[in-house]
Each structure stands twice: as C-alpha cells, then as structure tokens.
C-alpha cells in the first residue's frame, strides 16, 4: 500500500462523508458545506493519482484538472451562498420545503 493509494482511499472516504452529509442534513448551509467536502475529496484523489508515472516528476494533467476543479467549486459555492441568502430573505427559512405548498 504505497502512499498515493492511501490518499486516494482517503479522498473517496471524504467524498462519501460529504454525500452522507448532503443526504441527512436539512439546513442549506450544511448542504453547501457537504458539497465542498465532496469536492475536496475528489481533488485529493486526483492529486494522489498524479504520482503514477515512473519518474519522480508527477503527471501534470491531474494537477491541471484540480486547479480547474477548484475554480469551478469556488464559483459554485459563491452562487449557492448568495442564493441561500436570497432564499432566507424571501421565505424566511434556510430549509428546502419538501412538502410542496402549492399542491392544489
């Protein structure tokens, strides 16, 4: 079990923890946090996989992917937070109402 495999496994556990959090937690802020954890789990795995080519220099492609991933994750989180604030402003609670009100 060389070190990259451990990190990859750690990444996957982070991903599943995030997924669990997303499923169970009601509050929107917690859901956004869960999403971020899942994202960082994937990035960790990508970086771990970078150490696969023979030489000591790591494979550049995963790193490129991680950078783009981080950029995307940041913008997504920003949008999510502003949307949540607007939602709280509009409907008073930061919880997605499952019972659809307008079930006329």
């Amino acid at each position, binding site marked *: 079990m060389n070190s990259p495999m451990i990190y990859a496994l750690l990444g996957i556990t982070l991903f599943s923890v995030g*997924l669990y959090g*997303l*499923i*169970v937690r009601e509050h929107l802020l917690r859901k956004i946090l869960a999403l971020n954890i899942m994202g960082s789990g994937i990035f960790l795995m990508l970086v771990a996989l970078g150490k696969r080519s023979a030489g000591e220099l790591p494979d550049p492609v995963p790193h490129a992917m991680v950078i783009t991933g981080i950029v995307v994750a940041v913008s997504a989180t920003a949008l999510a937070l502003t949307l949540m604030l607007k939602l709280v402003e509009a409907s008073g609670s930061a919880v*997605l109402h*499952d*019972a*659809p009100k307008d*079930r006329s």
Partner: protein
Amino acid sequence: MIEAPFLLPLIIIVPLLLALGVVIRVTQRVAIKIAPWAALPALLAGLLLDDGKLQLPGMLINSYLLFDNTGRLFLLMSAMLWLATGLLHQAYSGALYAQQKVVFKLLAMAGCFLMPLAGDVLMFMAATTLAGYSLYGLLAQEKNRTTREAVNVMLVVLVVGDIVLFELLQLLGMHAVSVDFDAMRQAFVMTEQMNVQFGLLLFGLGAKMGLLGLHFWLIPVFITSHLALRPALISFIFSAGFIAWLRLFPLGEVYYPAIGALLQWGAWLMLGYALLLGVRQTHRRGVLAVILMTVTALWLSIVAALLIQPELWLSMSRSLVLAVIQMGLVMSALLIGQGLLKHKPTLKHSYALTVCLAIFLLAVAPVSLIRHFDSANSLTVTSLWIGAGIMMFLLWRTHFLLLASAEDSSYSKVLKTSHKGRSVNRYLFPGLVAVALVTAVPNLKFLSAITAFSFLLLFASMLLIAWLSRFYKPTEPSQLTSGFIVQQFKQGSSAIMEATQYLDIYSTRLRKGITKRFSPKFVLSHFSWYERSLNRWSVALIIMVLIGLLVSVQGLLNQ
C-alpha cells in the same frame, strides 16, 4: 290503334307534373282545377294505344315500360276508377288540407298507373310504394280516430308486405339473369325452395289483397274512408294485388300439387270465415270488405287449380283477367252507389234496379269461369259456386236490411248533404255498372245452358234466404274481429316499447356506473402520494446512490 309506345310515360308524367303544379303557389289554382281530369290521358292511352314496349335507358336497373293485354285492361280499370275519384273528390271533399289531399291523390294516381305499365320488378316495387304511401297519406287525413288507427295498421301491414316482397325478389334476383318480369318468372320456375318463395309471395301480396291473416285493416278502412277515396282504394288493391300475381307468378308453368291442395283448403277456410264475418257485419261497406275477401279466396282457389293443372292457364288467362276487372268495377260501383244515393234521395228506384244488376254481374263473374275447369279439380268448381252464392246472399241481405230500416238512423249513417253535387256524378254509379256489363259479355257468351239455369236457380234461392234473414239483426257494433286485433296490436307494440325503454335506461345507468368507477381522476388520485414522497430530497438521493451501485454491479456481473 296508334303505334306510339313513346307516349306511355306521358300517362305517369301528367299526374306528377300536376302534383308539382299544385305544390308551387303560382300555378296552384289552375292545377287544382285540372286535377280531376288527370286520369284522361291514361283512359285515352288504354283505348287508343297499341301494345308496345318502351326501354327507359337511365331509369333504375335497365327498366322498361310494358303495355300488353292485361296491362291495358288494368290500366283502363284504374283510369276509370281514378276519374270517378277525381270527380267525387272535387264535389265532396272538405276544405281542410285541400291542397295536401290533391297532391297525395295525384301521386297515388301516378303510382296506380305505373303499376300495370311497369316492365320490371323494381319499377313495379317503386310504383307500389309510391301508390301505397300516398294512399296512406290520403286516408290518414280523415278526422275520426278509428280510421287513423286502422290506417296506421294498414301502413304497418303494407310496409311489412313490401319488405317481404323485396326479400322474395332478392331471392329470385340471385338466379334471374336480369330484373324484368319474365326473367323473374324463369327464376321462379327453376328455384328449388319453391314453398319458401311461394309463402313469401302469398304473404307479400296477401297483405294488399286482404288475405285471411292480414285482413283486419280492410273493414275499418272500407267503412270510414271518404266517399271520393273508395274507387281509388279498389284500384290500388286490385292492381297492387292481382297484377303482381299475373306478372310475377308463372301461373301456367309450375306444376306443384302439394301447395295446390293446401291452397285449396286455405281458400275454403277463407270462404267460411268470410260468410261468418259478413253475417255479423252491420255496416254496408263492411260487407263489401268481406266481399273483397271472398274474391281473394276465389282467386286463391283458381291459382290452386292452376298449380294442379298448369295447362288450363292457356285457355282461361284472358277470361280470368276480364272476370277480375268485372268484379273490381262492380265492387267500386257498389261502394260509391250508396253514398251517391245519400246525396240524391230522389233516385231510389233507379238505384234499386242498378243494385240488382250489379249483384247479378258480381256473382256471374266466378260462375262464368267454371267452363274452363273439368272434373279433375271439382273442388275449385264447387268453391266458385259457393263464392258466388255467398256474395249474392250477403249483398241481398244488406240491401234488404237497408230497405227495412230506411228510417232507422243507427243503421245507415246519413251524410250531410253536400252543396254542389255536380250533375255528372249522378251517372257514375250506373256508368260503372254498365262498363262492368261490357267486360262481362265475352265471358257470358260461352255460358252453357245448364250453368246459366243453375245460376238463376242459385240467384233466386239466395234472394229468398237473404229476405228471410233480414229479421236477424246483429246487436253490438260490427267491427268485432278487426277492432280486437287493432287493440291487441296497439297494446303489444306499447308493451314492447316500454320493455326496451327500460332496457335503454338501465344500460345507460350501467355505463355511467362503469365510467365513474374507472374514470381517470379516480385512478390517478392514488398516484399523488407516491409523487410527494419522491419529491423528498433524501429519498431521491438514496435512489440515486442505488442506481449508481446497480450500474457498477452490472459491470461486475458480465465480467
């Protein structure tokens, strides 16, 4: 005689054009004035035109007009009767619905003239339907309820008769090479289910001629029909009934003793029934309806004889037609005679004389046919004698009852004296009897001495018995059998109506029940609970994880 077949359609077109004239408001007054003389072209054609055949290219299915001997005789009879109807109609019909009556009269006239001329079966059917429905239109105008009920029954019987006849023609049509009469006769000869087809023919034509089972509309219609309509009625019955027998049924070519015997006994049964019914009749014209039934019975016995000995037909065909025409004319004369007397009471004595002559002519017609039969079919000969006897007895009986109770109002209805009785109407009754005498002459020529003597003996005895029987006057009203059957008919049909009405309501309620239970809303309302649960966030994500696992497991399975 002028050789001009192309004039034939004129006979039918003139009445139709006049009918159109009456309908269109502009030419209405002129058309109504000419209407009574619409039968003239037919009369002239009957007298002057030579025998001929006219092919009508476009009409129906390659149909043509045929003008032969029987056609001429029946055309002449119809022309005279319709002339009488026209004159009487103008004189005595009420103002109510005058225009509609004239139209129906002209249409019926066209139908009756087309019947003797029709060369093929479909044209004949068209003629009978046209005449039948318009006559129904005429008769249904009557004010009192009994006529309308009887006329409704008549319509039902006529319609059913037409449909049965149509089916018979279709059965024949399969074998027949084309639609005209002689092809149909060939088909009739070579068919194998003869009894089925003869039964259909009997039923179809019996409906019009007052066969035993289908006679109940005759008596009320004869009694209550308006004075002007009676000759038209006789013309329709005789041409719709007898022409079809002569044209459609191959009288001379079919040898079928089984049906002949059966028919003979049927004829005897009808004669007996007619006698019974005639005696119970109170009204004069009711008796004449019974006379018509006797004539039909005699006709059936002659047909039975021909079925047993087909070769007789050649010799007697012409005299048979003459006898039928003679009987028709005499009956229509008797029908209108009484009515005319009512309008002109002064003619009492000449009326009695012409009635006596009419009864003689009516009875002598069947007797004059006896010379054609030999000992082989004695049953027919005896039935002819009995028929003549019954007719004389019934007529004399009514005559005596009439004389005995000239003052008793319940017995003979007094018509209100109409205002403008035209002078020519006075000669209608004796005129018709004279024409009947002319037609009787060729038959009387061959009358052998013995038959003439025995006939006079019968004539005197019937006179005597009738005079004796005038003391037995029936008490309750006359239409015993026909009224009862009309009642049954009405109750039966209304019962069927209610039963099927209930069926209809029940089926609609059943259908509504089913559709309510399986209506979309009812089924769909169950689904909304599942939809709400699916919308919950957590449930959705769990399903998503499941799908992911399922897909990856597939990869493992088909490794």
